[in-house]
């Protein structure tokens, strides 16, 4: 910010170049702090490495944190210097400071640096987003589709929110409905999130997935699982009385475990299968109770 020296020299005395001091301190601090933040803070940032998408978000969060580190350094150095160096002596009579009203150079540099930072962040975020949607819900016709994998090669899983529980349907296994979410490891999954009543939000923190469950909408989020793990599922959109209790545990398991699990679920599901509605992208249940 203070690339241009700002100190106007008082007559005769050797001027203290406050601007240069702050500038140098800022550069030194930033050069030290930014790599430290990226190397040591980055890896422990959320949401961890439970899936490719979660890993991508960790990288994204690391870049964001590293980018804002110099900004924080500038403010810290500036205020530490200004508030100590330019304070009025306690009890002294009111004395005005120098009437500096403007400095075109500082304004230009400030605008250029903030604009460059902002454009970099927006560009980087867009690049990350367009890879595969970063685990976010993208609506019924996603724009950020993962490259190198065809839609029909992905495991389709429908996530159905209702007050106050989640159920799941696997259309490639005959639309079987399950009470728990199991996913095979190292697999591309397309989560089709919808709701039967109000807006919910499907949040699997460790997988880096969040997608709102809207009634009448098929909200798609892509996910590439990594190794086996158990993960918490919570509702992240206020959905009424028991919103706070709308959580489950899901599991990423090996391919063989998944195959036997889904077979078991199909067996369990068989007696009630004919009562289930045909698999659809979304469902309109009977009209809800309404105020009047």
């Amino acid at each position, binding site marked *: 910010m203070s690339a241009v020296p700002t100190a106007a020299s008082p007559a005769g005395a050797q001027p203290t170049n406050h601007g240069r001091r702050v500038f140098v301190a800022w550069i030194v601090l930033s050069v030290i702090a930014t790599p430290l933040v990226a190397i040591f803070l980055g890896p422990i940032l959320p949401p961890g490495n439970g899936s490719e998408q979660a890993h991508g978000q960790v990288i994204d969060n690391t870049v964001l944190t590293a980018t804002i580190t110099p900004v924080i350094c500038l403010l810290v150095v500036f205020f530490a210097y200004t508030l100590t160096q330019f304070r009025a002596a306690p009890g002294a009579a009111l004395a005005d400071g120098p009437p500096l009203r403007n400095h075109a150079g500082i304004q230009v540099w*400030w605008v250029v640096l903030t604009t460059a930072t902002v454009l970099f962040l927006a560009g980087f975020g867009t690049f990350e987003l367009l890879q595969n949607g970063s685990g976010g819900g993208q609506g019924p016709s996603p724009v950020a589709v993962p490259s190198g994998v065809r839609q029909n090669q992905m495991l389709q899983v429908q996530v159905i929110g209702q007050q106050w529980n989640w159920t799941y349907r696997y259309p490639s296994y005959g639309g079987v409905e399950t009470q728990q979410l199991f996913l095979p490891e190292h697999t591309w999954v397309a989560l089709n999130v919808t709701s039967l009543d109000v807006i919910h939000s499907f949040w699997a923190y460790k997988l880096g997935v969040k997608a709102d469950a809207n009634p009448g909408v098929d909200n798609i989020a892509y996910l590439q699982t990594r190794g086996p793990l158990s993960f918490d599922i919570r509702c992240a959109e206020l959905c009424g009385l028991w919103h706070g209790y709308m959580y489950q545990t899901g599991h990423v398991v090996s391919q063989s475990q998944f195959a036997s699990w889904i077979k078991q679920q199909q067996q369990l599901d068989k007696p009630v299968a004919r009562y289930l509605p045909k698999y659809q992208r979304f469902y309109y249940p009977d009209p809800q109770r309404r105020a009047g």
Partner: protein
Amino acid sequence: MSAIAVAVRPPVVRRLLGFNLLTGVLLGIGGWYVGWFGAHAVVGPSLAYFAAIDFNELSLVLAYLGGVTGFLIGLGFLNYPVKRLLGYPPSLREKETEGWGRYFSLCTDHKVVGIQYLWGIGLFFFIGGLNAMLIRFELLRPDHQAFPAGTYLTLVGVHGSMMMGMMTSGILGPFANYLVPIMIGARRMAFPRIEAFTFWLLMAAGAILQTTIFWGGFPTGWTGYEPLNVEGYQGMDCYILFFALVGISMTLLGLNMIVTIVTMRAPGLTWTRLPIFVWGVLSTAILMALAAPVLVATLSMALLDRVVQTNFFIPSQGGSSYLYENLFWVFGHPEVYILALPGFAIVLELLPVFARKPLWGYRLAVAGLLGVSLLSWFVWQHHIFVSGINGDLRPFYMLSTELISIPTGFTFICGMMTLWRGNIRYTTPMLFCLAWFFNFLLGGLSGVFLSDVPSDVTTHGSFFSMAHFHYTIMGGLVFTFFAAIYYWVPKMTGVQLSERLGKIHFWWMFLAFNSTFMPLFAIGFLGQPRRVVTYPKSLQFLNDWVSVSAFVLGLSLLYFLVTFVYQLVFVKKPAEANPWGSRSIEFRLPSPVPVHNFDRIPVFSSDPYGYGEGPAPSPIPVGAPAGRD
């Protein structure tokens, strides 16, 4: 418009029975029952239907509208139009110049309205704060039910609505109403009766929100998302009516400010001489006047969905819940800048006084304020990044949201360079302004994570976003609100506030505030969603830390209230005309400011920031008034 003295003061009983707050409350209760039974009479044939479904929304809504109407009539808002319609001269009651009664009735003096706002808003801020204490009490334990789940959600909703609704006018209500006419050299606002109307309407709205507990509360939080909204009990109607009335109040307040600032500036007060506070008020008022009508329209549609079975927002009946989300945030995002911008303006207004330097980069600061208010219209979908709406527009909203940090940065650089090489005095108002930099820096930088879609996938709807907006709104608005109180209340009341007590308040509140909200970033990063009554046991330590800090924060505000009232009522140390050595015009007037502000209309020849540029001539002409100015 010279002072109109009321020669003979009527006896107390007559005054109590006249048009005032007491009459307003009585007529309000009466109006409530008129609406209630009137609606029952109208819909009598369908009462069986209402009984069958357990809800009678229509009677409740009409009852509240009748109550508000009665309240306003009792306060005397119909006196002027009715008297003029019937050919009588208007009553001068609303132009009274002295007495406590003015504060409890319709008064068109902008200074009285400002002080009414200060206490009125303060009352509801206090109630909202108590709700927050109860929320944090519930969260002391991961699964402990201090309150039933429905009560907890109502607490969350009332806290959010109270803060987002009432505090919207937190700076413009008390301080802009009081100071803008003085700062621009006028003797009143452009529409004084509308000015009073906005205040009393806001009070009625706040009272309506409180009564939601008698009707089952509401489960939606302050956002009122559909279709949960239409499922809610009758308490939901209280939320809708509250926010719609707040919207009307905000619209009128904004319009009044715009017209006043544009048309009533004194001679010589060009746009580049306007105090930066007035610029901040203007940019906020533009947002208010344009955004609040969207809210009123949205909530009217929601009310129709509930009361007369329309289907604007109900997906299973052909409506769209996305429509509600969109409309709500078209209002909702300008709304958060309505809360933040006055804070920017107060910081920039006060820094020159306490750094003894001119405001650095005046035009850049104005560009920052106007730039934020312009850009804030183009960012609303960042609230619904993962909702599945319009996936291909996410890069645009990511860019527009991040662009808003550029004009926000203008405010930062102007404030920072104003401090640079100044003679900084650490008075209480200055400490609150400096805290703004700290709080808003953290609030703004955490906003970068929320604006970035990949990062937002995790942080959206979590405690992280909750911490973010508390840093920007409580750290941005409430801290500057207190800066304004310590800076201007001596001028408004004529009572000097103690620096020592004020500094204790500052450090107590600043440390407790950060101790409360900084861990919330971590809690959000670790995966706790907002508005839940349960959380994993592993997060209990952090949650307990936050709760205890929140109680300490609450105590700091209680400490402020006690010391504030104690000093105003008992100590009453008279304030100097200019305790801060400010060059601003309000500090050239006596404390408190006389009823008609100026004997003669001032003539401006410079902005109020000429510190270090030699003595400035007062814009207030000396000598006796030469007739009507």
